[in-house]
């Protein structure tokens, strides 16, 4: 029993770290543009297909396919933003959220039209799991974990050291003051959408690597992504990472106790509890 628990925790940390990548994209868009972008799931799917095409059609290694996933999903995110969300900007965050949800459905069905409903797998060498005592870890699982950490490190460096990254944090923190210091909020919003959607795309590809790619690969993640961001505090970067790892572990642990079909319930329950007890989340500074 205790072994099963530890194994679930290991799996949970790895799954949570991968989940953190799209959760960071979601929370970044929320922080700068002040609305929850529910197209994030479909954008993750776009990235998964882009990475899959790069890998199976162009023979790219994972390190080459990942930037492709970022770029294609980033452009798709830009399209969602300018075609669906932006025209409704004046109507408030709820309308923008609904527009993104609708745009996500459109994207999902474009993918379904183009690629069909079949499950697609990456071309990966078949490797046997490593055993450490009682525990099993797949080499591919570990590689995905490493790639997720690399995505996060890049994001951190971008936010911390680049002028544009700092402007993004400034706008998220205090939009009016950023304006007074000469930041162009429209440009910052566009960069944020590309980076946020790109992160979702990379996350989708990493999940696709772990399982397979189909038109719902990303959509299945939306609830977990939203729960991770809410738990960490909407708009908080460290919060999204901590929230995602917590959600990843909770989901893996729930499978030990309940029927795996109930896995989705974890996200719902977490959202419900957080919104009831501490709406600002663990790291959040503002109540949403």
């Amino acid at each position, binding site marked *: 029993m205790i072994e099963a628990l530890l194994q679930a925790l290991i799996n949970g940390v790895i799954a949570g770290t991968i989940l953190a990548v799209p959760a960071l994209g979601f929370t970044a868009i929320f922080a700068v543009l002040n609305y929850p972008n529910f197209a994030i799931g479909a954008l993750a799917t776009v990235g998964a297909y882009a990475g899959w095409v790069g890998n199976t059609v162009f023979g790219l290694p994972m390190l080459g396919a990942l930037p492709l996933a970022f770029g294609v999903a980033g452009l798709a995110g830009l399209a969602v933003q300018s075609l669906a969300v932006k025209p409704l900007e004046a109507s408030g965050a709820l309308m923008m959220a609904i527009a993104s949800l609708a745009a996500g459905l459109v994207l999902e069905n474009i993918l379904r039209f183009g690629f069909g409903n079949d499950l697609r797998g990456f071309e990966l060498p078949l490797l046997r799991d490593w055993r450490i005592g009682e525990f099993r870890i797949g080499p591919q699982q570990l590689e995905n974990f490493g790639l997720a950490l690399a995505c996060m490190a890049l994001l951190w460096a971008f936010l911390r050291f680049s*002028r544009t990254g*700092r*402007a993004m*944090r400034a706008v998220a923190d*205090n939009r*009016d*003051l950023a304006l*007074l210091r*000469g*930041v162009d909020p429209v440009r910052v919003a566009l960069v944020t959408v590309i980076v946020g959607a790109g992160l979702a795309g990379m996350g989708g590809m990493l999940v696709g690597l772990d399982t397979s790619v189909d038109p719902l690969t990303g959509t299945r993640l939306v609830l977990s992504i939203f729960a991770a961001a809410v738990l960490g505090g909407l708009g908080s970067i460290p919060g999204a990472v901590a929230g995602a790892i917590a959600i990843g572990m909770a989901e893996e642990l729930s499978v030990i106790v309940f029927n795996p079909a109930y896995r989705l319930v974890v996200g719902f329950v977490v959202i419900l509890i957080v919104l009831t007890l501490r709406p600002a989340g663990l790291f959040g500074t503002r109540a949403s």
Partner: protein
Amino acid sequence: MTALTVQELTGGYAAADHVVKGVSFTVASGELVCVIGPNGAGKSTVLKLLTGLLRPRAGQVALDGRDITGQSPRVVIEAGMVLVPQERNVFGTLSVEENLAMGCFLDPGRAKARMTAVMDRFPLLAERRRQAARTMSGGQRQILAMGQALMSEPRVLLLDEPTAGLSPKAATDLFALVRATAETGVAVLMVEQNALQAMQISDRALVLVDGRNAHEGPAPALARDPAIRRLFLGGRGEGRMDATGTNRETSP
């Protein structure tokens, strides 16, 4: 030499468009001018109209003789005028160093040299360079806000209630810094609630009531004027003002 000239400035918000109804004044290089007036008189709105946060409906704003009426914040900064707003005037989640860098956002090539200069001037900021701004005290935050504004080496510095919420000691220290900044040749326009103390350190004072100039003159003289004292300063000269311009302590 006159740095900032404002003539018949008029404007307001989408929801309330008649807030500032014709305000005129000038500020010369090296001069410290304070603006006082009751809550809601339109003092902060004037500063927003000057810096491109709001677009004036009428009137003129000129900086060193150049017309910048209704220009974007970017153009206003590049022309040499910068505002420290009334509230939330630092980036709380950014470090002191990053806050200063944001003050030089449009001219990143100069950021390093200017940061050294600002930190020399305010050693407190050098000591706390890696600290997040939100963890600093109110007085320290005001100094950071001023340091951030000075990062663009402005010719005109606009301050909106820099001593709001500070202890008397911190307020006095901050006033000294404001005075010293004016002495370096910067034209400073300072909105203040702490009217008596502000007038004591200012060269001139401008009294705004209901979106218009009400009184104007050399600050020491205005501070002694019994009419002004009765209207705006109250018994001991430290009272705050209500919307009619009378002091709460002395009105029936």
